[in-house]
């Protein structure tokens, strides 16, 4: 997939509206800095460019004990931080302990719950993660408290990036502004609110990578303006994508449409139905709602930039049930079901939505569909933080349209769509399980699936997950509405395999592997 002979050199300009919050891998957790951090830092594990296939990154080897509990990593030789120091096993241990240290307040700490000693350490007790042992300079041994098939993916998360202790300590809280990692690029300049510049890291551990000499992120540009810049040849990638308002315009212009790469995304947009609030505590009502939503029309409203969904998992995720039909759009039947459930005249409820286009529009489409079966949903159009707060209360938001805050997978594994958003663990005050759906049996099956760590069991594990999600749909705590598609618009100056431009883990593109046609 990756053109190893692609020339190196050249540069590109990526535009963004929002300022980069931080480049600290333990802190950064929005889709904008996620990929940037990926290019500045490396962890033990990574992905094949353009795919969801795990590969070794800084690690030279990864051995798993038979019971799946002990993972032994050896580091590659001669790998260096941007500051020139060689990376050792100690750095791996330090990095994992840093991200799980409560003082760090990392939003990713919870991912490492399977590592032995996490509970104590994360509660502020003990001396580090007891499960992480440094065997020698190059070897680190990580012991888990339960077998976990997702562990490889977890070690590929940004949060598991290896950071140099001395640089972290020198910068303190400002490490996010002065990041030092071992990624393909190093930070060259950061002018707040204006630009961030990455430069090729000459000592990168993969030869011939990255392709570009320099990436400039121009900050603070409204997407509409970014598009103007693109059209004037002053930018190579609008980082925020093609603005919805200009989408059709771009796509209807063959010359521009030519430069747009379309791909899937590990994303699902859904409506949560609070299963603990009347009347959504009645499964029949939830199913009726599922049948009432005209997903095709919603997709049309957003100019076809998504595909209708019928289950939680997106089509590109392993475990997606191809032949599952879901709840077909059938308002008549929905109405009947409501009547059978004791709501012949429907009922009134509220639909919470984040106030950024196109979400209020989608909410209005949903509202119209609901009113067709007699449900009168009042829209509560609020700022993101307020919607999240309302969802975290057991009795506040009967329905939430998840768009804008919706789930994009952290890593390409079906389990990632379960725990916080559908499992009992998330159905707590302040949790992300806004449907307040808690099915203990499914939780148990999920734990079981994740303990199938043997590569031979991979197939069976995926099947198990597939069934879990189908069973979830039976209970209908959500109305999956659509899976967003990605449309990456690039300039003529950039080249590379299409998959690099819709890389599932790098948004908007895989910075390390795309190359410049102007390079030689």
């Amino acid at each position: 997939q990756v053109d190893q002979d692609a020339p190196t050199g050249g540069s590109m300009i990526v535009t963004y509206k929002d300022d980069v919050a931080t480049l600290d891998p333990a802190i950064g957790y929005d889709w904008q800095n996620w990929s940037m951090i990926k290019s500045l830092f490396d962890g033990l594990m990574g992905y094949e460019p353009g795919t969801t296939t795990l590969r070794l990154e800084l690690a030279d080897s990864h051995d798993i004990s038979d019971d799946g509990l002990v993972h032994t990593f050896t580091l590659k030789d001669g790998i260096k931080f941007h500051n020139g120091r060689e990376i050792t096993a100690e750095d791996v241990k330090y990095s994992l302990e840093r991200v799980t240290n409560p003082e760090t307040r990392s939003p990713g700490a919870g991912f490492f719950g399977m590592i032995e000693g996490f509970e104590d350490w994360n509660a502020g007790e003990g001396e580090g993660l007891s499960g992480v042992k440094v065997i020698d300079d190059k070897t680190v041994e990580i012991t888990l408290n339960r077998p976990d098939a997702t562990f490889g993916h977890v070690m590929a998360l940004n949060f598991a990036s290896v950071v140099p202790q001395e640089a972290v300590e020198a910068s303190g809280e400002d490490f996010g502004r002065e990041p030092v990692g071992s990624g393909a690029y190093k930070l060259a300049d950061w002018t707040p609110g204006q630009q961030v510049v990455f430069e090729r890291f000459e000592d990168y551990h993969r030869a011939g990578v990255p392709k570009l000499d320099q990436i400039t992120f121009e900050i603070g540009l409204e997407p509409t303006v970014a598009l103007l810049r693109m059209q004037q040849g002053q930018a190579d990638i609008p980082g925020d994508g093609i603005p919805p308002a200009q989408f059709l315009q771009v796509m209807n212009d063959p010359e521009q449409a030519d430069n747009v790469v379309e791909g899937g995304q590990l994303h699902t947009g859904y409506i949560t139905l609070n299963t603990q609030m009347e009347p959504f505590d009645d499964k029949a009502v939830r199913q009726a709602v599922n049948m009432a939503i005209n997903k095709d029309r919603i997709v049309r409203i957003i100019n076809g930039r998504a595909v209708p969904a019928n289950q939680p998992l997106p089509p590109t995720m392993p475990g997606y049930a191809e032949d599952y039909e879901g709840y077909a759009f059938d308002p008549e039947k929905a109405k009947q079901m409501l009547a059978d459930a004791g709501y012949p005249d429907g009922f009134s409820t509220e639909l919470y939505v984040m106030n950024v286009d196109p979400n209020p529009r989608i909410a209005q489409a949903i509202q119209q569909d609901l009113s067709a079966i007699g449900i009168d949903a009042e829209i509560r159009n609020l700022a993101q933080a307020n919607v999240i707060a309302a969802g975290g209360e057991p009795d506040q938001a009967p329905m939430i349209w998840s768009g804008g805050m919706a789930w994009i997978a952290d890593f390409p594994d079906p389990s990632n769509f379960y725990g916080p958003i559908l499992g009992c663990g998330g159905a707590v005050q302040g949790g992300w399980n806004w449907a307040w759906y808690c099915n203990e049996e499914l939780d148990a099956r999920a734990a079981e699936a994740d303990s199938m760590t043997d590569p031979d069991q991979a197939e069976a594990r995926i099947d198990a997950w597939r069934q879990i999600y189908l069973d979830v749909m039976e209970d209908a705590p959500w109305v999956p509405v659509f899976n967003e598609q990605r449309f990456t618009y690039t300039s003529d100056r950039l080249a590379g395999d299409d998959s690099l431009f819709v890389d599932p883990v790098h948004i908007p593109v895989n910075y390390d592997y795309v190359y410049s046609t102007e390079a030689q």
Partner: protein
Amino acid sequence: MSVIDPPAVARRGRARKVAAVLGELMRRPRAAFGLIVIAIMAIAAVFAPWLMPHDPFEQSFDGLTLAGAPLPPGGEFPLGTDLLGRDLASRLILGTRTSLIIGVLANGIAVILGAGVGITAGYFGGWIGAILMRFTDLMMAFPALLLAIVLAAIFQPSLLIVALVIAMVNWVQMARVIYTETRSLAEREFIQVQRSIGSGTLRVLGSHLLPHLLSSIVVFGTLGISTTVLLEATLSYLGVGVQPPTPSWGNIIFENQTYFSTAPWLVFFPGAAIVLLALAFNLVGDALRDILDPTLKGRH
């Protein structure tokens, strides 16, 4: 030259005076135009259900192209459709309600409050003035958007709350301008005369200061219409105001402003409605000021 007929003025009595002023307004073409526009909008607001060509909430299937683009004006939808395929004309007519309430009522409260505070502070000066003006400064620096967010989360969003928030935010500007003008008017001799007559404060403020402040009040009052109608949209966006799908001119603009290059009618028509409303009030206000300012009589 148009002239107020003398007998009508010669008889005093409030009602007659108002009638005379109204008659004079109607005699001025521009003011009459303004009055008519206001009347039409008021009628549109009251009789909206009978005037709308379509259901303003119906996301009509043929209101969007297959690719999901809204339809331009013409044909079945006289002013085109919005991004959900709803009839823009109907939504504008229904939106008149919210916008009139905000632009006239909320803005009116703000004007009255602002003028009141400004006059009081400017006329009395001293510590009353200082306290009022510092309070005004405080309100001006007040993080109103934050307040809006809190209110949105605590209360059910409603037009009343928006109106209150807007009145709270907008009176400040008025107060400051009126304050400075009052300060310099209060030094004038004809105001001293009032004191020497023993006129009560209310009389001095109402009968003598106010007419001299009228032009500023007209300016602020009419410009305030635009700003409040637009502010309502911001507040709706933050969840305080009317919630979708209820239309208001402001939120139609706000929702669609990024589409103005691809679907300009979505911004143009509601924008034109706001300008028209503000302009209408301004025409009437200007004429009123002319009529009430005798030194300008005969000019128009």
